[in-house]
């Protein structure tokens, strides 16, 4: 892969496996925002998954292979931007742990320095002052755990949402409490996961917002799936869709 002649910083989009397969709209919204922040967007085809399912199942060796695959795929990028706090945490924090003491240790550190969760990238690294999106209504924001606690993603999505014309944020109670997704946890312990997502969607409903946003598709699929089962009127979208004004796809778990 040769570098293009584009003078702008080269931002590699780490799509995440869920966005790639379930909701490509989020990928396009992210690409539009990254471009709006003054970067060239590239999408390496040698990427697949960040390896968390293996890592969190205790399969360290396999997780390490995912780390090497991903680092190699983004070797010629100035930035690696991830529309997920969870996957970004894996790339930025855990790859370094996995490759510590190996010949790839410094590569992992160099890579980690380039990795950003999408909203942090836009608000903090690129200092985006305007966003294309506009939304007439009230939204509530769920702080996904890994983004919040591993990467400190808290103000960035809210600062960006404040730039969206017409949008009002109505915070829900316990917006920082886990929604119960937890990757494979949601299917290994469905009873506990359900109890957690029930609390979460109850809080979201009580917030008075008509749209529930988050920065992670895993959490969103969990919450949207629960709301849909309950025939709730609240819609769910990835924060990038609202920021980019890319709202042509139906809300998550809803029909065209």
């Amino acid at each position, binding site marked *: *892969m*040769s570098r*293009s002649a584009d003078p702008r910083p080269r931002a590699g989009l780490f799509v995440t496996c869920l966005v*790639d*397969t*379930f*909701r*490509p709209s989020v*990928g*396009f919204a992210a*690409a539009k925002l990254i471009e709006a922040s003054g970067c060239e967007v590239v*999408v390496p*085809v*040698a*990427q*697949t*998954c960040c390896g968390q*399912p*293996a890592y969190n*199942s*205790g*399969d*360290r060796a*396999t997780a390490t*292979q995912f780390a090497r695959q991903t680092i190699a795929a983004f070797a010629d990028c100035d930035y690696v931007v991830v529309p997920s706090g969870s996957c970004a945490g894996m790339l930025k924090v855990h790859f370094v742990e996995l490759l510590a003491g190996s010949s790839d240790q410094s590569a992992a550190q160099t890579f980690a320095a380039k990795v950003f969760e999408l909203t942090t990238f836009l608000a903090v690294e690129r200092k985006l002052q305007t966003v294309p999106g506009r939304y007439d209504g009230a939204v509530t924001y769920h702080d996904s*755990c890994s983004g919040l*606690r*591993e990467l400190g993603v808290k103000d960035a999505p809210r600062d960006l949402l404040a730039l969206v014309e017409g949008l009002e944020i109505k915070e829900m109670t*316990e917006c*920082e*409490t*886990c929604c*119960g*997704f*937890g*990757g*494979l*946890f949601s*299917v*290994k*312990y*469905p*009873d*506990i*996961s*359900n*109890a*957690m*997502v029930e609390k979460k969607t109850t809080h979201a409903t009580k917030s008075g917002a008509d749209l529930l946003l988050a920065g992670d598709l895993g959490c969103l*699929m*969990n919450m*949207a*799936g*629960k709301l*849909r*089962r309950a025939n709730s009127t609240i819609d769910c979208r990835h924060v990038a869709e609202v920021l980019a004004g890319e709202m042509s*796809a139906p809300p998550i*778990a809803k*029909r*065209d």
Partner: protein
Amino acid sequence: MPSPITLFKGRVGDALIDVQLQLALSEVPVNLAGNRAKAKAALPEFERLRDVARDIKDHTLEHLDHYLDIYEENATAAGAIVHWASTPEDARAIILDICRTANARLVTKGKSMVSEEIHLNDHLEQAGFEVVETDLGEYLIQLEHEAPSHIIAPAIHLTVAEVERRFRKAHTQFPQSRVFNEPADLVAEARQVLRQKFLTADVGITGANFLVAETGSSVIVTNEGNGDLTQLLPKVHIVIAAIDKVIPTLADTVTLMRLLPRSATGQETTAYVTFTTGPRRKGEHEGPEHVHVVILDNGRSELLGTNMRSVLRCIRCGACMNHCPVYSAIGGHAYGTVYPGPIGAALMPGLSSVKETAHLAGASTFCGACASVCPVKIPLPDLMRNWREAEFQAGSGSVLARTSLKAWAALALRPKLYHPLMRLTVAALGALGRRRGAFRWLPLARGWTRYRDLPAPEGRTFQQLWSETQKGVPR
């Protein structure tokens, strides 16, 4: 015999539909977590103190043998007798022997998780001793032979109505017509019953929040004063504590004490913080004639040289369980272990066999709330992941899960195979789900669809769509 994980899932199912339990648990985040947040906000150096506390504990663990020796030396010089117990059996034998030598009949107990760890009450009762828990919460659960459901609030699973029911059932000496208008009435009745026990006990057993090496003192941190009556009134006082409770100095104790009550209950300090150094001295009018300190290992020293060492920093505040969304959904008993919640999942496989308790590390979303509030910064999700790795390496756990994981990884590590296959899968699922936007049911996804719909894919992968938009653009 069902597997430990099957038993666990059964208890979880029961807990989730237990109306009384759910009612009791609903107050945990408001009370304990909320109070901690207020206490933290009122202490600007709180976060810095967590680093200091972590360093104190790490330093101590680095030189644990040294500080245990110093503790023994100073406790002995003060007149206490220090006993070393490598297993629960050893500890019980030592304590039984002390009780027999004292010709004891009645044994009072202050709250001690280590005594729960060695199942002390059962063994003392089997040996013919009357054992009375004097901490109100412990007393309440002893009435129905239950285990604690929380390490600092052992009866947190009980509602006030249930406490009243237990008292009416157990205290038949009082008129049934009496009324309990408020919790204080319950406390008053417990006090009346327990007062007599304090005065007639032959041996008092307490735990220790800290063992101070510098002075040979043991420290208890309590709110009810029962611990003091337990350790001061009988002729014999036994302290039962684990090796990880030793800390170097009084100054270190003060530092850790700034964090312990704040992290636990949100209190700046507890009602009582009692330092005990040896038995009653010549000329003193109160205090036990004999003090024994039983120091338990029970697998902890095996963790020192491993990547699990930081679990021994724990000062048993319970903040991890107060902030754990899994704990607050299922309560402590569902874990089926002495120590529940995140610290239990991280510690228990080190104390018992990995096979029996390693599955608890799987019952976490790794949300990290526990680690973010831990006063000694134990990286609890990392430790739980370590146990998952140990289980994976040992080849235990579900065969289906392992096989699926291997198959998925084999595919996802071959992007040239992965992307076309995802295209086909997503096209098929998208076609099936597009009309409704979500699946109510899907084969192999029952764990998900039992409670929630599965959002349908849009129908094409991002990689596919992106490559179409990029045609002609040099990459």
